[in-house]
């Protein structure tokens, strides 16, 4: 049975929990990382993975995303385990003049904030992506966007500090949070024993509310599912992550635009991402559901339909697998990176929806700075728990 004391206990071994644990150890804290299965077995291995700037809204969303890209480039050298980071850029493409108009306005807003985003003419799309459909109206591009392997990123964070300030407790279930009479955190009860700790960080993603309720804290994360298809390995016909601009429309309801009714039901928008094994990952859908990893045939059909519309070459290429993951969605599209005032010692890092991988490096760093009592790299007010009340 466990019976140990740590400065901080992190709950959840996905990309947020492993990043938080790594950055806390770097600040000198002793850290226990508790995971109910093994590392990266939930959302962090049932997703695609890119660190993009072209899918962030101007303001705090873009600031957090951009700072994370810069941190990723540092981590490539800092972590010994290779998490397959590449910086090949990323592109959004538009099907209609109306989409192109919205995309150009978005790009100009981002440029005004200092982000390097180019607006592409239709013929420039072909130069970047020779196999893309020839009837598109243009797109936007940033060469700063990165691709990476999300579960290897989790392994990389843990391998670097495991046994050197971090103890990993996998296959360990949290059964309760112990508070004292002043409602301060005293420890974590698990099915393997008791961990004495004054601070916990809830990084449980779509399961965060369960861990919140153990301390009387409601965390309104909603599961928002996505399905992805994998191609058989082939010659490299796709150079970078490419998405239809409809993806932005599916992600943020602020954009109003007419869409293919066949894909609207499951909020499907085309994305394609080259991967280290010469496969491509093709997505994806966005619908509220329970926590389920099933891939529905109607959604697979809608995704494949969009895929051959944007890359006609795929018509003749094989799909070898489908999978689904569940994103931790917040109503206001901003994550929680925060303390909880009514329970001193309780911290939350979750609610990144589909940006968990992309924002993990900065989320870890910000939580570590918050716990160390330092001035955080970014103002944490927009990510505070207080905004929900």
């Amino acid at each position, binding site marked *: 049975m466990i019976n140990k004391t740590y400065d901080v206990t992190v709950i959840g071994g996905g990309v947020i929990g492993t990043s938080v644990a790594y950055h806390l150890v770097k600040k000198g804290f002793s850290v226990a990382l508790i995971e109910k299965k093994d590392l990266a077995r939930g959302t962090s291995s049932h997703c695609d993975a890119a660190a993009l700037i072209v899918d962030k809204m101007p303001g705090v969303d873009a600031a957090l995303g951009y700072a994370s890209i810069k941190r990723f480039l540092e981590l490539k050298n800092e972590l010994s385990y290779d998490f397959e980071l590449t910086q090949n850029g990323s592109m959004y493409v538009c099907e209609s003049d109306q989409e192109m108009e919205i995309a150009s306005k978005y790009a100009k807003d981002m440029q005004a904030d200092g982000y390097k985003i180019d607006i592409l003419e239709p013929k420039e799309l072909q130069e970047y992506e020779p196999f893309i459909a020839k009837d598109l109206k243009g797109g936007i591009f940033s060469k700063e966007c990165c691709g990476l392997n999300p579960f290897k990123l989790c392994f990389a964070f843990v391998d670097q500090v495991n046994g050197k300030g971090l103890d990993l407790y996998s296959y360990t279930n949290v059964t309760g949070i112990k508070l004292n009479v002043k409602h301060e955190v005293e420890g974590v009860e698990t099915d393997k024993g008791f961990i004495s700790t004054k601070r916990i960080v809830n990084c449980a993603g779509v399961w965060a509310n369960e861990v919140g309720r153990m301390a009387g804290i409601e965390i309104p994360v909603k599961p928002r599912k996505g399905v992805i298809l994998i191609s058989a390995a082939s010659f490299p016909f796709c150079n970078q992550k490419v998405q239809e601009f409809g993806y932005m429309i599916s992600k943020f309801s602020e954009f109003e635009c007419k869409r293919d009714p066949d894909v609207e039901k499951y909020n499907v928008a085309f994305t394609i991402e080259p991967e280290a094994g010469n496969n491509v990952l093709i997505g994806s859908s966005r619908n509220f559901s329970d926590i389920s990893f099933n891939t529905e045939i109607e959604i697979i*059909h809608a995704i494949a339909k969009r895929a051959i519309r944007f890359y006609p070459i795929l018509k003749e290429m094989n799909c070898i697998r*489908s*999978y689904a993951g569940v994103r931790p969605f917040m109503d206001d599209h901003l994550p929680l990176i925060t303390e909880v005032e009514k329970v001193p010692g309780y911290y939350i890092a979750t609610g990144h929806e589909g940006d968990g991988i992309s924002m993990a490096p900065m989320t870890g760093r910000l939580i570590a700075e918050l716990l160390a009592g330092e001035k955080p790299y970014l103002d944490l007010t927009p990510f505070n728990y207080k905004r929900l009340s």
Partner: protein
Amino acid sequence: MDDKLRDDELVCRCEEVTVGDIKAAIKAGARDITEIKLRTRAGMGLCQGRTCEFLVQQILSRELGISAEKTGFSTPRTPQRPVTFGTLGGDGFDK
């Protein structure tokens, strides 16, 4: 399984994963089929583990001293065999 399985022997032909790669993944903490898959790509290729899964189970079982059933299996997913995106996304697709 042959006792003299060499470390350079191929286990997963699709992704070219060897016995040595599998053993290294076990050393790094992998305890079941999915963890081996995430760390080595064994079972991620064209045949989706049809050829190698049994072998990986045997290696896991021997290295960890657990029964083959305890090493789990890869989650079955659509499609059951490779099928073109044209078929999956075509107009004649039978939902």
